[in-house]
């Protein structure tokens, strides 16, 4: 494993430090494998995960293969995972498959993937390998008609913050990071070799199945309902967080006032005592008396805000598509 890290570091060192990935090349078998994995093992709101393998070429990341992770059903999941991964990579190396670990993929339920777990995982990946991405596959959106795969990385700013683990309000203010700057999206391009091209021609010849025009399906209320429900939950979380923060800041300011008052009283007393000729009262440790309240960690708020943003984007995309479809239906009726 050390040698692998060395390999990665040398590869990463060859690139610029900020590792600005312009493009992501995705090979077809990866797409098909991810789709198959979710279809077979991940019904419902279970999340399926797996590892992406590939190469870094100039400023592009080429993902050439992938393998899935088993579900966490046993208790000793951790140990199994690492061993499973090592075995898989070793075996794949024998058959000349790129064994460079370049990222991981995860399926998502209606777009809710901005969570602490994802952040931590992606941070550890990106810390080890500069160019790693997380590929989010949305099966529900895909079933509605168009393949939905998005690749994300953490911005350098967020990497800094995670490194220092400083999630207090002051720390975040220093970094000046907003929820929009948490993840950056890398555009994906699907690439095929010539042989796969021939295969695709074959498939088209042999399978005379009708084109699925799922995309032009008019029913939208189900999807809208679910999305709005999730959005409302998140907004509730957000408001709770805001309330917490408000109470904290109010407590803080109250405490400041109390401290101030105490100091003033002390000074007055001391002045009085001095005027009477008595020794002044000792200066007590103010900090021990007024313990500052704990600032709530702001990371969760940031994540929730990011998630809400994501939901809103998805909903807007969905509604714009549906508006287009509705206008098409109107045109059809108009000519009838």
């Amino acid at each position: 494993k050390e040698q692998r890290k060395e390999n990665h570091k040398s590869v990463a060192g060859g690139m610029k430090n900020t590792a600005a990935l312009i493009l992501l090349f995705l090979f077809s078998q990866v797409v098909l494998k991810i789709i198959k994995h979710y279809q077979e093992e991940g019904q419902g709101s279970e999340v399926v995960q797996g590892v992406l393998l590939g190469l870094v070429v100039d400023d592009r990341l080429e993902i050439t293969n992938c393998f899935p992770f088993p579900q966490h059903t046993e208790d000793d999941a951790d140990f199994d995972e690492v061993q499973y991964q090592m075995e898989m990579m070793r075996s794949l190396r024998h058959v000349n498959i790129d064994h460079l670990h370049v990222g991981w993929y995860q399926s998502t339920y209606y777009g809710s993937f901005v969570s602490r777990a994802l952040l931590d995982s992606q941070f550890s990946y990106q810390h080890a390998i500069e160019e790693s991405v997380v590929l989010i596959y949305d099966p529900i959106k895909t079933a509605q008609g168009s393949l939905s795969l998005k690749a994300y990385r953490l911005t350098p700013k967020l990497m800094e913050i995670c490194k220092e683990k400083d999630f207090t309000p002051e720390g975040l203010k220093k970094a000046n990071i907003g929820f929009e700057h948490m993840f950056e999206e890398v555009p994906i391009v699907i690439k095929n070799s010539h042989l796969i091209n021939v295969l695709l021609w074959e498939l088209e010849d042999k399978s005379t199945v009708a084109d699925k025009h799922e995309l032009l399906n008019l029913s939208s209320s189900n999807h809208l309902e679910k999305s709005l429900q999730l959005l409302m939950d998140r907004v509730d979380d957000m408001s709770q967080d805001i309330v917490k923060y408000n109470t904290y800041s109010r407590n803080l300011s109250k405490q400041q006032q109390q401290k101030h008052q105490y100091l003033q009283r002390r000074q007055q007393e001391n002045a009085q005592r001095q005027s009477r000729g008595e020794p002044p009262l000792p200066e007590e440790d103010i900090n021990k008396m007024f313990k500052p309240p704990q600032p709530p960690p702001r990371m969760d708020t940031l994540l929730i805000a990011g998630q809400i943003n994501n939901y809103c984007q998805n909903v807007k995309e969905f509604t714009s598509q549906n508006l287009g479809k509705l206008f098409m239906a109107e045109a059809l009726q108009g000519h009838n």
Partner: protein
Amino acid sequence: MGCLSAHGTSAAVVCVVGLKSQSGVSMGSSGRSSFTVLPSLLRLRERCATTLYSLKPVSRGGTGSSSLSCLLKVTDFVAGLEKALLTSLYSGSTDQLTALRLRLLGLLRGSDVSRILIRSGICTEPFGTLLLAVPSSKMSVFGPVVKIHPVVLASICDSYERRNEGASRVIGTLLGTIDKHSIEVTNCFSVPHNESEDEVAVDMEFAKNMYELHKRVSPTEVIIGWYATGFDITEHSVLIHEYYSREASNPIHLTADTALQSGKMNIRAYVSAQMGVPGKTVGVMFTPLTVKYVYYDTERIGVDLLQRTRVTPSRTKGLTSDLSQVAGSAARIQDMLTTVLAYIEDVLSGKVTADNSVGRFLMDLVNKVPTISAEDFENMLNSNINDLLMVTYLSNLTQAQIALNEKLVLL
């Protein structure tokens, strides 16, 4: 001659090429195949003639005899092509070979109308039977049907591209599920092996290991057979098949011709059967099975996107989003409609004889648009649009809200 005979030509060529490769494959290396091919061409002609007579009721009107003659012309043409192919194989001139291959491929891509009409699901019946009639009557239906997912084929192609120096073919294990009447192949992995003239070595440990790992992810998949790239079945294949019969009962053997020796990637499946004189020399014969491609819904959509990478010269395609997807889908439907309209124009102007089943499908198509009173439709449309607009407004509002919150915190 119009649309019906145009696709008749392509159908004929498909079946002819399919037959040729079928008969050439069963035994022997390429050296011996020339002897088996030439007599089979004569059989081809008979076959085409007989099938066309059986297809006559479908192609209405007086097109029977005319398409028969055109079919015979086609068989002559293809026979000529085959001869040229064989001579160039012997003489070893690869340029001629590739040129011929490309010509054959070009023929196969002909006839847009039939393809589009089938793909749009408007009429699968008449054209479908023409295209599929001959190959299925020739292919053996012994044994279960093999259903392959495209992910398996993509993996096979990929492992072929990554093979070691000097290896002429790649083998691997097939995983899947067995049903009563069909075998569904859903996954595969390649196994390293060494093959030379007299011996073959397969890394069995590796295969077992990989299978264990795969089983942890999808416990329902079992070993159902193995695959090999390449055109023929060699003696080594028999040995490997024997090994796999220890792992799975009655394994299937899949060949995928990734070297494109016959201009197509022939993907075929076989089961082994004992043959010979009992008590004396017993041999193994590989009997072919029917191969079908199945997709999950999401796979179908994924494959559709992948198909669109064929057209760009750099074989790449970005993922579009938003309204452009709807626009793309609408454009495709528009294309299909123009083709259908062109066909209708042809029929109306008398260039093509009308086919009743196509007409019935067209009636279905037109009647599918529901007739709703204008007022009701207006109401429905407006309420839907209002819902969508409201949701858009709410989400914009939420986004503005969280942005504000952020700014306030940073103050």
